[in-house]
């Protein structure tokens, strides 16, 4: 069954990719989508007994093949399914199957749909490999596989230069992270003697006090390994400093953004830290880094989201920010809360993206919210779906009760866990998240208001022709909407209920730090209400600025140009990186190309040598004059030379 879940998407990808032009686009769509649906159903069949029974009583391991045997390294290709994997399987295969179905409608006019569906299925296969990894190399395989699929899909419309640039950017920025990740895997192997997950974990206890020299500094080896691994997670999950690729990745088709750049791939970093929680848990310093990076990302991405005008970019920054939330949970030691948010976020963020896709579809690929407005009457179902997604994202619910949307439970869990950490770092994280919640609420409602409410700013015929999406696009939205509403409340106990419930659910697949969860549950009431209050404040201000006083935002921007420009330009990170990394690299590349390669190697060494050879040849050919006496002379010169040499060198004088 596990094999089927993992390999059915690969089968689909191969069929659509290799035979796509033979069997036609429609057949490719149907085959890949149905295989994904089967895969999703099987995932739920695995998940339900774990969620509502006694957790994963036993880790399922399915050996596919022996992979690498070199010296101490004995790796098998094993599909590992425990509770954590089961959660991920459900998220990945469900969202992926819904996105597949949705894409049939969304991509209906595209000429190369077989390729698109092949990529989507290939991505899904790689992601499933990633989450079922039993050792770090397998994880790395999936990790790079999703990176590749992401690259291919961002650049799917390869005729657009911006799409190509975005694809390359995503790939390169991820390379930075992956470099750290690879080093982290090596460090793990050196330190723990194995990169098999179970065997590595069992060696942690003995490795806690080993220190290692790295870049001239003496560091705790486990801390170093954890930080290097986290570097990989930062790249994949677009955390602060390595986040710049994610907004640009919105160049890909919208279903791709929903699947890869919101629900699944970007959460791989979160999954990896959770999967390796014993390694991270062994290093307090590494945990603090995770906490702080997460908090900064959550806050900073939310601030940028406040002023963006592209509907997809707003959601992209929101994703970035929400990933920050998840890392705060991990850094706080509440791993289950991080996974909880990952789980719920997948539903409502995919819903928001697919809803945005529906809006874009209706508006003939217009993404600028300044040219929308008043779409509520034109596309009412999409409007309702977006509202549900927004309610879930902003975390609407009543603290202390079981009433609330999915995001409410998971987000509040994280904020409480951050508070529970305490100390300066804990407080920093807590306040960052509360502020981020305020901003989240503001930009989410801003998006709704600018898109659906008020009078339209769209071009006349665009607005006239706006139409509701076909059912094939709407049905996936209904499923996601159900998830956005109920995923939080249904699984609260398993993810962030009493400690014993969490332990029962997760078995030993992640570390569960009892005191943090205890402290989070016992947080003061004002802490529990803080996020809700921030959410309300954001809602009210957005309502005031975009419904009651629509001219206020423009005046505000004019009154405070410096903060506005700062946010609009995304804290100038792209410009900063351009100056620090891109320009010098291009200069170096130009230097190596024009000076080293063209001038030195090509011109001087290769062609220069060639010219020399021609000169020498010409001289040698001239020697062969055809005159007999020249030839005889050459022989006599030769013998004279040989005699002289023998006499002088042989010491006969």
């Amino acid at each position, binding site marked *: 069954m596990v094999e089927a879940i993992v390999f059915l998407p690969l089968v689909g990808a191969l069929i659509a990719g290799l035979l796509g032009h033979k069997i036609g686009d429609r057949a490719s769509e149907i085959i890949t989508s149905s295989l994904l649906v089967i895969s999703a159903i099987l995932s739920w069949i695995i998940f339900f007994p774990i969620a509502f029974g006694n957790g994963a009583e036993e880790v399922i391991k399915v050996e596919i093949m022996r992979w690498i045997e070199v010296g101490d390294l004995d790796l098998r290709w094993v599909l590992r399914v425990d509770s954590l994997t089961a959660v991920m399987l459900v998220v990945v295969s469900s969202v992926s199957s819904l996105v597949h179905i949705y894409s049939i409608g969304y991509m209906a006019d595209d000429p190369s749909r077989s390729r698109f569906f092949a990529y989507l299925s290939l991505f899904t296969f790689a992601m499933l490999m990633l989450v079922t990894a039993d050792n770090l190399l397998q994880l790395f395989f999936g990790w790079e596989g999703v990176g590749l699929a992401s690259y291919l899909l961002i650049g799917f419309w390869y005729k657009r230069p911006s799409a190509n640039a975005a694809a390359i950017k995503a790939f390169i920025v991820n390379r930075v992270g992956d470099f750290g990740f690879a080093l982290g895997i090596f460090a793990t192997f050196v330190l723990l003697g194995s990169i098999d997950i179970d065997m590595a974990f069992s060696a942690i206890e003995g490795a806690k006090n080993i220190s290692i020299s790295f870049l001239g500094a003496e560091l705790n080896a486990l801390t170093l390994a954890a930080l290097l691994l986290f570097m990989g997670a930062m790249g994949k999950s677009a955390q602060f400093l390595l986040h710049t690729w994610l907004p640009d990745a919105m160049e890909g088709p919208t279903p791709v953004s929903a699947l890869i750049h919101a629900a699944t791939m970007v959460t791989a970093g979160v999954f990896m830290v959770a999967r390796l929680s014993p390694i991270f848990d062994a290093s307090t310093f590494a945990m603090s880094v995770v906490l702080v990076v997460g908090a900064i990302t959550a806050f900073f991405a939310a601030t940028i989201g406040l002023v963006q005008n592209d509907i997809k970019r707003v959601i992209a920054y929101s994703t970035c920010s929400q990933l920050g939330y998840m890392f705060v949970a991990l850094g706080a030691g509440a791993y289950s809360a991080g996974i909880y948010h990952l789980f719920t976020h997948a539903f409502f963020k995919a819903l928001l993206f697919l809803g945005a896709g529906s809006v874009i579809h209706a508006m003939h690929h217009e993404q600028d919210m300044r040219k929308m407005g008043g779409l509520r009457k034109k596309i009412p179902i999409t409007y309702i779906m977006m509202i549900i997604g927004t309610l879930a994202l902003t975390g609407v619910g009543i603290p202390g009760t079981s009433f609330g949307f999915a995001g409410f439970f998971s987000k509040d869990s994280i904020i409480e866990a951050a508070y529970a950490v305490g100390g300066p770092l804990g407080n920093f994280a807590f306040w960052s998240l509360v502020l981020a919640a305020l901003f989240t609420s503001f930009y989410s409602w801003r998006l709704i208001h600018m898109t659906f409410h008020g009078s339209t700013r769209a071009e006349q015929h665009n607005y006239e022709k706006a139409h509701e999406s076909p059912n094939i696009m709407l049905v996936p939205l209904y499923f996601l909407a159900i998830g956005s509403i109920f995923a939080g409340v249904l699984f609260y106990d398993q993810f962030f209920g009493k400690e014993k419930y969490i332990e029962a659910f997760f078995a030993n697949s992640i570390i569960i730090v009892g005191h943090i969860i205890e402290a989070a549950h016992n947080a003061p009431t004002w802490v529990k209400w803080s996020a809700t209050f921030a959410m309300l404040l954001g809602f009210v201000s957005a309502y005031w600025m975009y419904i009651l006083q629509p001219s206020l935002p423009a005046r505000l921007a004019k009154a405070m140009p410096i903060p506005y420009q700062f946010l609009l330009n995304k804290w100038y990170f792209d410009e900063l990186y351009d100056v620090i990394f891109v320009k010098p690299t291009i200069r170096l590349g130009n230097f190596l190309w024009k000076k080293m390669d063209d001038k030195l190697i090509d011109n001087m060494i290769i062609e220069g040598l060639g010219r020399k050879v021609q000169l020498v*040849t010409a001289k*040698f050919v001239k020697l*062969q004059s055809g005159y007999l006496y*020249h030839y005889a002379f*050459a022989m006599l010169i*030769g*013998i004279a030379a040989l005699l002289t040499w*023998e006499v002088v060198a*042989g010491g006969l004088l």
Partner: protein
Amino acid sequence: MNSDITNFSSLAPIFPELIIIIGAIIILMAGAFLKKQASVGLAGITIALLLVVSLLIILFPTDGIILNGAFIQDSFARYMKILLLASSLFAIILSLSSAKENSLDRFEYSVLLLFATLGMMIMVSANDLMSLYIGVEMQALSLYVLAAMRRESSKASEAGLKYFVLGALSSGMLLYGASLIYGFTGQTQLDEIAKIIMLGDRSIGLIFGLVFLLAGLAFKISAVPFHMWTPDVYEGAPTPVTAFFASAPKVAAMALLIRLVMESFEPVSQDWRQIVIFLSIASMILASFAAIGQKNLKRLIAYSSIGHMGFALVGLSAGSLVGVQAVAIYMAIYVIMTLGLFAAILSLKNQNGYVENITDLRGLAQTNPFVAAIIAIIMFSLIGLPPLAGFFAKWHVFLAAIEAKLFLLSIIGVLASAVSAFYYIRIIILMYVYEPEQQFIKAQPELRFIMALSGFLILTYYFSIAAPLTNITRFVVGSLF
């Protein structure tokens, strides 16, 4: 001095040579009295004669030193004789299809070729400076005439004349060297010379003699700077004769050189190795560069053979058993490649006759894919690309040189080999990249057979003949040490 020939059976070691002498004289007489049309039949008899002698050497080997130490038959001599007999045999076969065009359809051709072969066999078996000279002169005089066989062609006559004059000069050097050595050692027998050198000093007269002797032999293997005749003669002589020139005499002269330096001058190996290294480096470098400037295919092959003699000398420079073995292997592979290549060149015939220019090869891959493929295989092998035979030839000699710590020589050799790749690959490009300009007549079956055999041996060298060849050469070279 009493003769050591007491009865008929004591002549056994020299039987092969005797058979060739008798055969050649009979063919000479038959040719003189029969009609001109009989020459084809006589060529057939010549082939049969060479085949019989080869089989005699292989099947009934009789080793020994006779004629008062002037003639030696040992396993080394037999190996080299097989090589040169095979070269002569195939050279005659190569000449069959084009005998008329090249004025080779005369019985004198067969007779001269047999006498040349006889001279070379004596060279290989020479154990005395006098028999050495007789062998050298016998083959040289035959070759001069062969080069000029095509009397009506001014090019051929020029080639024959140049060859003769320069050959006479080299003979003079050889004789002068021999007389110096006799004067300073009092001996002409090779093993006796070694004994005298061992006892006495290494005098300046002896070294002078050595240098002159080696210079005379260097002319025969056309090592730089005694190579000047080669391109002109190769170009001017009829192509089948060139094929013969490029194969058998090189084997004989190399065998003689090896025997001379290993047997007589072993005690002064430091001195002759210097000379061999010089000849080797000069040949490799000059040939690699000069060949680039050639337009005529036969001139190109002339330089190529100069270069290959340079590579073979790399092995001899080591002065070791492994080195000599490497040379023995090299010569065998060289003969295989050379004969295959000439078979391919002799297949390049259009309605106007044979073509010789490199540019005529344009588009050969389309008009005559089989010949093009064979040429390509041989070119890659001449470059020394693994896993072809030419690679292993070079590998053995360089290995020997490196074992003898001749690093500079090895590096120069490899670089020269790299430069030489230019003109070999240019031929392949001409054949495969360009459009054809002319149509060729289909090759004769015997040429196709030789090409196929050569191509097969080169391609499958490692699996087919590598192991037996290595074993045999190790054994035969053992008889020199």
